[in-house]
C-alpha cells in the first residue's frame, strides 16, 4: 500500500467515523457532552490529516 493509499484510507475511515460514532455508539446514552467533545476531536483529526497530506509538498 502506497503512502497516498494509506492516507486516503485513514481519511475515509475518519470521515465515516465522524458520522457513525455519534449516531451509533454515543447516541442515546446518559446526558453528557460526549458527542460535542467527540466532534471537537474529529475536527482536530481532520486538521492533522490534511497537514499530513500537505507537509510533504515542496516549493
Amino acid at each position, binding site marked *: 500500500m502506497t503512502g497516498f493509499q494509506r492516507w486516503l484510507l485513514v481519511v475515509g475511515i475518519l*470521515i465515516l467515523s*465522524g*458520522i457513525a460514532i455519534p449516531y451509533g455508539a454515543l447516541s442515546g446514552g446518559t446526558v453528557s457532552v460526549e458527542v460535542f467533545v467527540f466532534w471537537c476531536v474529529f475536527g482536530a483529526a481532520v486538521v492533522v490529516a490534511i497537514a499530513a497530506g500537505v507537509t510533504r509538498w515542496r516549493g
Partner: protein
Amino acid sequence: MISPTLIWVSVLLFTLLGGAIALKAARGNTGTADDYYLGGRNIGGMVAGLSYAATTYSAFMLVVLTGLTYRGGVGALGFELIYFSGLTLLVLFGPRFWLAARKWGFITPAEMLGARYGDRTIARLVAVLSLVFLMPYCTTQMAGIGLLLSGVTGGDIGLPAAILTGAVLAILWTLIAGLRSVAWTDAVQASLMLISALLAVGFVVAAIGGVDSFVAKVKASNPQWLDVPGPGLWSLPTFLALALPWFFFPLSNPQVSQRLFAVRDVSALRRMIFWVLGFGLVFTLIAVIWGFAALVLTPGLENSALATPALLGSGAVPVGVSLLLIIGVLSAAVSTLDSIALTLGSMVARDLLNRGAGRDATQVFIGRVIVVLVVVFAAWFALQKAQIVDQLAALSAAGLVVTVPATIGAFFWRGGTAWGVLASLVGGSAVAVYMAIFAGVSVFNPLLATTVIGVTVALFVGVSLITPAREEALDFQTALRPELDRHRVW
C-alpha cells in the same frame, strides 16, 4: 436593543477602513484580466487563506448555523464539521487546480473544465449553472444582513437600509481593484469576524457563570440538545442530506475553487490551507457555542434565525463588543457576496461572452458590469422575498454538486468525454430543479442529494463510455504529472 446611530457610526468606520484597504490594493493592479480576477496570480498564503475563509464562512454561520444549534442542538456541529472535512479534497485538488491554471492560463474553473474536455459549451453551461444557483445564494446573504440589523435595533433599521448597506460595500470593494481589493478586504473582514466572535462568546460564557455552569445549565434545561438526533431536527437522514452536498463545496463552488488559481506558489497554497483550517475550526465552534448560549440566555424564540440578534440584545455582551460582532456578521455577508459577484463576473466575461486573450479591458469592463448586476439582483430579490429565489438558494449546494464528477474526472479519469460531461450537467441539474421545485422534495431529505449525485455520476460515466473524446481535449494527468512529482504532490 442597540441604538441605530451607534450601528451607523460603526458601519461608517468599517466602510472607511475597507475603502482605504481596497484603494491601497488597487495600486498593484495593471489592468489585465489576470490582475483583476486573480490578483496577478501572486496572492500570498495568509491573505489567500483568510480570503478563502471569509468567502466560505458567510453570514450563514452566525445566523443559520447558530439558529440550527438553537433549534436542534449539537448535530449542527457535526454537520458543519463534515463540511469542514471536505477541505481534505484540497490535498489532492489544490495543487492540480493551481498547476493547470498556471500552465494553460485559466481564470475560471468553468474555463478549465471546457479546455480539459475540449468543448467550450461545457464552460458556458458551468457558468450558467453557477449563475442560476449562486445568485439566489447572494440573496440569502443580503437577507442575513437585513435580519441582523433589523433584529438588534428592534426594527429601527429596516430591511431596505440594511440591504443597501451590504450592496454598496460589496460593489465598492469589488469594483475598486477586483480580487486584490476583495482578497485584502476579505482578510481584514475574516480577522474582524474571528476576533469579534471570540470576544462575544467569552462574554456570554462569563455571563452564564463560566464553562462548568454553562454545561450544567444546558444539561438541566435542554439535555436532548447535547445528543443526536437531539430534539428532532438532526435525524441521520437529515444530517446526511445536508452534509453530503456540502462536503464537496471546495470543488463545486467556483468562488472558492477560483481562489486556488490566485496563490503565488505551492508553499503559499499550503499556508492558505492552514489558515482556512485554523479559521474554520475555531469559527465553527464559536457559532455552535453561540447557539447554545442563546438557548440558555434567550430561550423560547419562535424563529431560531433570530438567536444572534436576541443574544446581542440580552445585555450579556457589552455594546462595544456587540457592535464589533454586528460588523463581523456584516463582513461575513459582504465578503461572500463580493467574492461570488467577482467570480460570476469573470465567468460571464470569459465563458459566456467568450472575451478571451488580448481583450483584457473588455473582460474587466464586463466583469464590473456583472458585479453590479449580481449585487443589484441579490438586493432586489432579498427585498421581494421571492419564494423561487429562496428555493434555489437552498438548492445551491445540491445544484452545484453536479459539476463535481466532471471535475474529479478531469484530473483522475482519462475516459471522461465532453458528451459525458454535458449529459451529467444537464441531467443532474434538471433532476435537482425538478425534485426540489416541482416535486417538492426538501433539501432536508437525503433522497434529493443522493439522486442528484447518482444521476450525475451515472450520466458522466455511462455517456463517456459510449462517446469518443474530443481531439482538442487536454490530458491533465499526463501533462501535470512531472510538475506534481516535482512538488511532491500525490
